[in-house]
């Protein structure tokens, strides 16, 4: 980072902090200390105050904010430059999505967005908690893009600066030479996943005493509220009763008053405007969640989250400084202005893939308060999930995760990999749909949450690739015995019997 960027980051961060409610509370706290502390005099004021401030909870809230935001800002420093082949591939992909969206719109002969009448808005407001009843005929809607489409697009990306020799040495499907972490490095990073540690989600059945101990520690950790400590604790899994609090701490989500107001504002936006993309989300919920006996109860919550999500312009910031173009449209306002003005569509700038809903459903298990649920999901998206559908050289983006999966499977079980390749089976083709949905919809919900605990605690999506490779290794015997391409589906179709932690341990062992 150069001096200029550092300066910019510093001022942005301090502005962000001074505008937060935590800062206000911190200020009050200091004033309180000054008035109540008995050992305070003009001479020792500095030391005594500093001492007290350091150990206060309100100052920790501020360090958490700084830590979280600083870390967030430093992740994507080397996003793709738009002139490179990866940048071009991203642009191509965006154009494809826009075309798809436009063709849906013209096929149905519906506008992408229009204002609701006041009456319509009021009607919708009445049924806000039972939006599932609002759904009309959804047959005619289709997803903007399927998982196979983005998969094929990723496979088509070729680096034109590769020598023939390098090209021949690529054995997997991904031909983007992305840097893969060597397995040793990965193992070291995920040391807490080794067999030596007690893992929630697996070992509590063996030893209830340790489990109680862990729970007790968990309560302490929640109380202290220090991001780094919470993360360390969660690396071995969050205990079920504390999961909500721990997740909120890791993601640094505190619903403040302004957030509540903003939430209601977004709700009003739903009542004000009718978007075509809403119906696409509706359909996605209907086909992916309502048919699933584990998650159908969350139907109405899902609509609420997704409808607000489309209208939340907070997400636009995510795409700044990256070579990502947000879909645009031109409108002519009704105030007599004859010019066309650019607006983003949808307001949050994000076009979802088929099954996007599944990234929300697991969070519904953890939070019942719709406001908190919304902000947790939004934070999840801006820290992790947006990387699942952008093309970038970031090892955490979808291409990096795919390459990591292929690499782990090849190096940990080369025999299996080449057996499958001989039968013309591409392991990545199967694993891709797991990874892009972060395994949601494939696993038992309790197991899925264990996996997501680790995404948050290790602050990385890499665990998805590791786990995907683990699934193949776990089903090795069955896979090695197949002689026909068609059998592979039946072996890897149902993952509901899997224990996430056990499989992760298998890979790292």
């Amino acid at each position, binding site marked *: 980072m150069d*001096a200029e960027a550092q300066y910019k980051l510093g001022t942005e961060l301090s502005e962000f902090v001074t*505008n937060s409610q935590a800062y206000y509370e911190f200020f009050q706290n200091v004033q309180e200390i000054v008035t109540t502390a008995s050992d305070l005099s003009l001479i020792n004021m500095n030391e005594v105050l500093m001492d007290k401030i350091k150990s206060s909870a309100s100052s920790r809230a501020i360090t958490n904010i700084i830590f979280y935001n600083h870390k967030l800002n430093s992740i994507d420093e080397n996003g793709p430059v738009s002139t490179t082949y990866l940048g071009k591939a991203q642009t191509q992909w965006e154009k494809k999505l826009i075309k798809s969206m436009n063709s849906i719109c013209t096929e149905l002969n519906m506008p992408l*967005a229009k204002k609701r009448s006041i009456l319509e808005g009021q009607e919708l407001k009445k049924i806000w908690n039972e939006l599932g009843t609002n759904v009309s005929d959804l047959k005619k809607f289709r997803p903007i893009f399927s998982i196979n489409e983005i998969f094929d697009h990723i496979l088509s990306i070729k680096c034109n600066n590769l*020598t023939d020799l390098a090209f021949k040495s690529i054995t997997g499907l991904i031909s983007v030479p992305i840097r893969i972490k060597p397995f040793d490095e990965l193992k070291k990073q995920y040391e807490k996943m080794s067999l030596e540690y007690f893992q929630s989600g697996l070992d509590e059945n063996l030893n209830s005493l340790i489990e109680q101990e862990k729970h007790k520690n968990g309560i302490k950790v929640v109380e202290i509220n220090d991001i780094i400590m919470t993360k360390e604790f969660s690396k071995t899994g969050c205990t079920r009763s504390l999961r909500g609090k721990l997740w909120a701490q890791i993601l640094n989500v505190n619903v403040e008053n*302004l957030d509540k107001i903003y939430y209601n504002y977004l709700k009003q936006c739903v009542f004000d405007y009718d978007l075509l993309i809403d119906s696409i989300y509706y359909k996605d919920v209907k086909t992916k969640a309502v048919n699933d006996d584990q998650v159908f109860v969350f139907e109405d919550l899902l609509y609420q989250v997704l409808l607000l999500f489309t209208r939340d312009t907070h997400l636009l910031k995510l795409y700044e400084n990256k070579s990502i173009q947000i879909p645009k449209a031109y*409108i002519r306002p*009704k105030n007599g202005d004859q010019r066309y003005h650019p607006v983003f569509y949808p307001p949050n700038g994000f076009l979802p893939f088929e099954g996007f809903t599944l990234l929300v459903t697991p969070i519904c298990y953890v939070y019942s308060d719709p406001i908190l649920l919304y902000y947790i999901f939004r934070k999840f998206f801006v820290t992790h999930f947006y990387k699942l559908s952008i093309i970038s*050289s970031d090892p955490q983006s979808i291409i990096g995760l795919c390459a990591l999966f292929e690499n782990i499977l090849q190096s940990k079980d080369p025999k299996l990999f080449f057996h499958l390749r001989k039968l013309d089976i591409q392991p990545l083709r199967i694993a891709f749909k797991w990874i892009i949905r972060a395994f949601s919809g494939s696993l038992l919900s309790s197991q899925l949450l264990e996996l997501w605990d680790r995404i948050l605690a290790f602050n990385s999506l890499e665990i998805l690739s590791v786990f995907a490779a683990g699934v193949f290794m776990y089903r090795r015997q069955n896979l090695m015995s197949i002689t026909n391409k068609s059998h592979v589906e039946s072996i890897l179709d149902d993952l509901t019997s899997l224990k996430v932690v056990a499989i992760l341990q298998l890979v790292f062992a």
Partner: protein
Amino acid sequence: MSEDKLWVNVNFDMRNQLKLFVGERSKTQFDSGCKMFDIFLKDTFRFDEIKFQNFYTGYITIKVKERFSKDTNNEWKLILKRYKLMANVHGETGANQIFTISKDMFLDKDVNNISQLRFILQQPSFYWKDFGIDDIKLKALNTDLSIEKVLEDFSKKSEKVKIKKIEKIPPIDVLSTRLQNLWILSNEASKQVKSKIEDNPRFDIDGCYDVNLLSVNHSQN
């Protein structure tokens, strides 16, 4: 801190980036994975920052030559040695990134009156057809700008940014229903003050968001 005030571009002439060979056998298949080129400064003989866009170069070494050296041999002085540009030379990360090498990173900070720079680029991986660096810019801190003036500007600027106090808002559920309209108003009002609210701009224009089709030609603007 606007760039045009504090930084000035340094003009220079550049030679072609040449691949190095062992001996004179440039026609052989052997690839040294090493390139070299020189830069000659024209009018300003100092710089504080080097900026460039990488194109698959793994490591960079920079040497400088001074104009009036006391040393009669006038030897090259090393200011950067095998600086890593790609996290892994076989991987994409960093391969197309824009880098800034500032004076703090120089090995020998005590170099003045520089007339010539020598860049040595290395790419040990056989993966890549070609490598190099593009779009090189040398920048110098504007010495005409005294530190007093910078500080003065800065304090003027920071006065403008008022610290916004956040009042505690009592019974929130009651308030929030009424505050819908206020939200929009305050959104307008807070345009000068950077705040949480301004981070989430409104998506409609004067209450209009009648979108019919997306613009296909979206790379402009």
